[in-house]
């Protein structure tokens, strides 16, 4: 006969809470044979860029590329002294930070409004907003330029900031987050005496970490790497952003590849550092947004 089991406790045993699930170590498998060459293909341009960045001009013209005989650190200092690289870095940082912050604030509030507030024409407004996602940027390039020009922002950092203060994608992303959130939390907050803004600030904002991180990362990447719009909106070298500045290293007839690659490497350093710092968040953001 089976021994009588212990009487069940009233609330039951507390579940174990593994906040950090230990990563499983995978054994090498057939997949790795397929993935390894792919990884090599992906890494080749990066490695080539690094090798070229520390080579002489002559060494950079060899094919296939070879390791340099001596590392040319001077390429980096030449980039810094021979071009307004510091300005470009600062400009890109200013534009990126302002655009990221404004997107976090405006997209989350607009997304909340579309998800929760009932107002006349909200459905139509949201459809129109979504429709802008379907239009390629090249189509609206000229109208945007005319608008920015009418604001007197051409060749100023404002031209890079104002059109990007809020994005349809960001609003959509945040709206979907709020829709997935149970309304009970907000209703409980309102019954507990919080205003709508209070509910947003004290209850929803702390829960918005993952979508806000996604939005911040995607916005930062798109602004940091943007080339086309700065090319149209900015003319003077002092006001250029990093990607636009890089293009000045490329001549019509002759390109100093080691200098260009050194500048490219320098321009990507902040992104690489950011990626290494928040690698998991980066991958999750890009995977969850379905965007590459």
């Amino acid at each position, binding site marked *: 006969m089976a021994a009588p089991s212990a009487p069940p406790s*009233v609330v039951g045993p507390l579940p174990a809470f593994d906040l950090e699930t230990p990563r499983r170590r995978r054994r090498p498998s057939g997949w790795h044979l397929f993935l390894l060459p792919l990884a090599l293909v992906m890494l080749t341009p990066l490695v080539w860029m690094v090798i070229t960045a520390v080579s002489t001009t002559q060494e950079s013209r060899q094919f296939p590329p070879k390791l340099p005989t001596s590392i040319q650190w001077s390429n980096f200092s030449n980039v810094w002294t021979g071009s307004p690289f510091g300005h470009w870095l600062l400009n890109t940082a200013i534009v990126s930070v302002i655009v990221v912050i404004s997107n976090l604030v405006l997209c989350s509030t607009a997304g909340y409004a579309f998800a929760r507030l009932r107002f006349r024409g909200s459905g139509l407004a949201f459809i129109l907003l979504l429709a802008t996602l379907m239009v390629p940027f090249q189509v609206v390039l000229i109208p945007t330029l005319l608008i920015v020009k009418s604001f007197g922002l051409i060749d100023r950092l404002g031209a890079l900031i104002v059109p990007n203060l809020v994005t349809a994608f960001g609003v959509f992303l945040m709206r979907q987050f709020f829709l997935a959130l149970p309304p*009970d939390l907000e209703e409980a907050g309102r*019954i507990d005496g919080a205003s709508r803004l209070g509910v947003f600030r004290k209850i929803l904002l702390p829960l918005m970490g993952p979508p806000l991180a996604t939005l911040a990362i995607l916005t930062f990447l798109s602004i940091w790497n943007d080339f086309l719009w700065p090319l149209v909106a900015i003319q003077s070298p002092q006001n250029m952003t990093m990607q636009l500045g890089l293009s000045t290293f490329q001549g019509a007839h002759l390109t100093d590849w080691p200098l260009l690659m050194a500048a490219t490497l320098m321009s990507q350093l902040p992104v690489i550092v950011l990626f290494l710092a928040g690698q998991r968040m980066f991958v999750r953001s890009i995977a969850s947004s379905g965007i590459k």
Partner: protein
Amino acid sequence: MATIVLDGLRKEYPGKPPVVALEHLDLTIDDGELVAFVGPSGCGKSTVLRCVAGLEKLTAGRVIIGDREVQELPPGKRDIAMVFQSYALYPHLTVYKNLAFPLKERHVPRARLDAEVRRVAEMLELTPLLRRRPGQLSGGQRQRVAMGRALVREPLAFLLDEPLSNLDAKLRTQMRTEIAAVHRRLGITSIYVTHDQVEAMTLGQRIVVMRDGRLQQVGRPADVYANPANLFVAGFLGTPSMNLLNGRVDRGVLTTGTLRLLVPGAPDADVVVGIRPESLTPVGSDDIGPCLEVVVSHVEALGNENLVHGSVEGTGPDKPMVLRALPTVNPGEGERLRARVEPAQVLVFDAATEERVTTSGPVLAADNRRAAG
């Protein structure tokens, strides 16, 4: 504490045509009373609660809590507290901060806030859990935190929206007892919404049965159970449900299957006869009382009793029959079982209006043997 008056509540949702969720609801809930709203999904019981809480705007009607009309006030100004089905605990805050949140929003001084939180935590045995987050609590503990957050500021009224539906059966029974104890201790006027009739019957001092946005019956649980106003209430309350058989009243005599009863004063009409499973007793073939002959389909053995399922010939198609019997009564499939009916416990409903048929005197047994013959 306060009286709650619901005066002509009407709630429509826009649409073509508009969806009427509540239709002219009048009810007064006395000071300190616990009223349970019960009904099937979509009957409007949660809408009532949300209208009282201010989470839904009324189309028409008034809500009076204490001496204030509150239908135009936002939820936070109504001095009510609510426990949600999902508990709606703030996941990023500890239990302490969850309990403190309503007080903080009302700018209660820190020392009083701390004292109040600890008092409620003590009362609900949450003290050891104060530093945990909701994700680290079991279902029952979360439920208690939700109760605590509602009780911490001593509201005028306490609204509970299916608070136990996410718990397992054992825990639900225990929490039901706790809610009843808390209500007895604090005496806060409470509205309790549930689709579980057992919860409604055991917790509510009065129960309100709703259907399609309309109030069907209000009364003490035992009264509503014993004297349902219509077929819906009769069928909704009770597990297993009341047996409903087609019948006919002719010149004061009710006939259904082999059963004949005297229903003094009842008009001639097609009727539905309601008999609770516990009002039927299996008897031998020599019993001369008013009986129904049940053709057994299957038996559910519950340990302390058997539920005998079957049907009665001549009472209408698809009219299943169930009766409670001792565990020793275990008839086989297809067997005929005589079940004696307690005439006084037979309810008669008009088949057309589904309303209860009033009789001028108690239902009595007619000559059963003659009817059978």
